[in-house]
């Protein structure tokens, strides 16, 4: 099937009212089911190399903000008026993770417009919310297509959805489904009952590691600018830039963006900035040790102090940024942590730079 670009008018970010029930062809659409007042595209429950490729790209922050599915009503299997309705965000990765769990299941998928953002983040913003669900139910004429009055909303959408208001305004009852799409078949089989395990959010090693590329990509831009500056300095003959000068900083970045997220529960302490700083100090000491510096002379001491000031501050800052990707931080907690950590980071960073500067002059 030819890949047809989704009509941007219908999925644009702000303002434009999506057209009712006209869903453009897409590689994952494998048929069309005639329903009252139109047709519903049927989607495959098998992910292709194209879908996996898109996921990998999004994990590396390539096209992540424009990786979307056209909002509307879709179907899997042979949906009937009695089949369950599953609500999804229109982030393509959310949609893929849902449909791949639905093989052998007949269901409707109500894709709501979250501007291509995943369920949890969109719920926090309110775009995965009461308003959009109520509107989308009306737009797709859900009441004319299904014979029941239930919709299954992913539990992680609950921060944006008020179940009793959806009921009041649309007549549809919100049943909160499991956190993970992989629990959906069991949830449906058990008469829509979620076990406590289905209601809990995990954040294991794999959960954390898949998030680190985005953290890395976020630092690539400042790193590239730094590399360019170093190159200019080199070419201008002001300073000979060597690997020896660069690797301490590169290491500090990797510590904050990759090592701390991966080792998160193993690092003592609760504050993210603290965890980053702690591992950063270990890295700084390793750097000092690799370089085999003398501790007796003033220049050596100043350089050591410089590294111990600067490197952990970089790691701490990046680790603090991982609070947003984690699943167990709170607004109040992060605010408290920032209030204490950011001034400290700036102070030690500046002291470190001063020490390096003075050290270079003394030398």
């Amino acid at each position, binding site marked *: 099937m030819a890949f047809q670009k989704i009509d941007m008018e219908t999925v644009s970010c702000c303002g434009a009212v999506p057209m009712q029930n006209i869903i453009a062809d897409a590689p994952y659409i494998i048929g069309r089911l005639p329903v009252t007042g139109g047709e519903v595209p049927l989607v495959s429950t098998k992910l292709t190399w194209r879908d996996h490729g898109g996921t990998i790209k999004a994990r590396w922050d390539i096209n992540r*903000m424009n990786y979307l599915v056209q909002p509307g009503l879709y179907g899997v299997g042979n949906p009937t008026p009695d089949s369950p309705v599953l609500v999804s965000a229109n982030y393509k990765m959310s949609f893929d993770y849902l449909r791949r769990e639905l093989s052998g299941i007949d269901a409707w998928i109500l894709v709501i417009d979250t501007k291509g953002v995943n369920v949890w983040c969109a719920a926090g913003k309110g775009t995965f919310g009461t308003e959009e669900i109520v509107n989308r139910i009306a737009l797709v004429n859900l009441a004319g297509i299904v014979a029941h009055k239930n919709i299954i909303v992913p539990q992680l959408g609950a921060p944006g959805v008020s179940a009793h208001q959806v009921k009041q305004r649309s007549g549809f009852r919100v049943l909160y489904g499991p956190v993970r799409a992989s629990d959906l078949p069991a949830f449906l089989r058990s008469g829509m009952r979620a076990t406590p395990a289905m209601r809990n959010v995990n954040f294991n090693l794999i959960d954390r590691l898949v998030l680190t590329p985005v953290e890395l990509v976020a630092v690539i831009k400042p790193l590239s600018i730094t590399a360019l500056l170093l190159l200019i300095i080199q070419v201008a003959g002001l300073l000979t830039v060597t690997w020896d000068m660069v690797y301490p900083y590169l290491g500090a970045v990797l510590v904050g963006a990759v090592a701390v997220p991966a080792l998160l529960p193993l690092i003592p302490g609760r504050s993210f900035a603290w965890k980053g700083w702690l591992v950063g100090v270990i890295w700084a000491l390793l750097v000092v040790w690799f370089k085999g510096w003398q501790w007796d002379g003033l220049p050596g001491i100043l350089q050591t102090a410089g590294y111990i000031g600067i490197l952990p501050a970089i790691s701490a800052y990046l680790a603090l940024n991982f609070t947003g990707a984690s699943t167990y931080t*709170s607004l109040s907690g*992060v605010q408290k942590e920032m209030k204490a950590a950011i001034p400290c980071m700036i102070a030690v960073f500046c002291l470190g730079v001063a020490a390096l500067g003075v050290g270079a002059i003394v030398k």
Partner: protein
Amino acid sequence: MKMKYLKNVVTLDLNSDKCTSCGICLDVCPREVLADKAGQIVIKNRDACIECGACALNCPFSAIKVRAGVGCAAALIKASLTGGEATCGCSEGTCC
């Protein structure tokens, strides 16, 4: 392993007089913060709360109050620099 964040910072508040123990809050909480203790909803694990606001928004009796928001330093730093609202997801102003 269940990871814990900072202690005694959470703004969660449950008003037992308004609560009817309908239990919707137990369904929406992703952190098992609340529990049904002999027919009475109680805050069982306050420090596990991530202030997502799901319980407060879904309580039909307005029995729960929490200052909901994102626990995301990057968003808070950006918001404090630009004066905008702290949200996650749409970075770099590509969206709205």
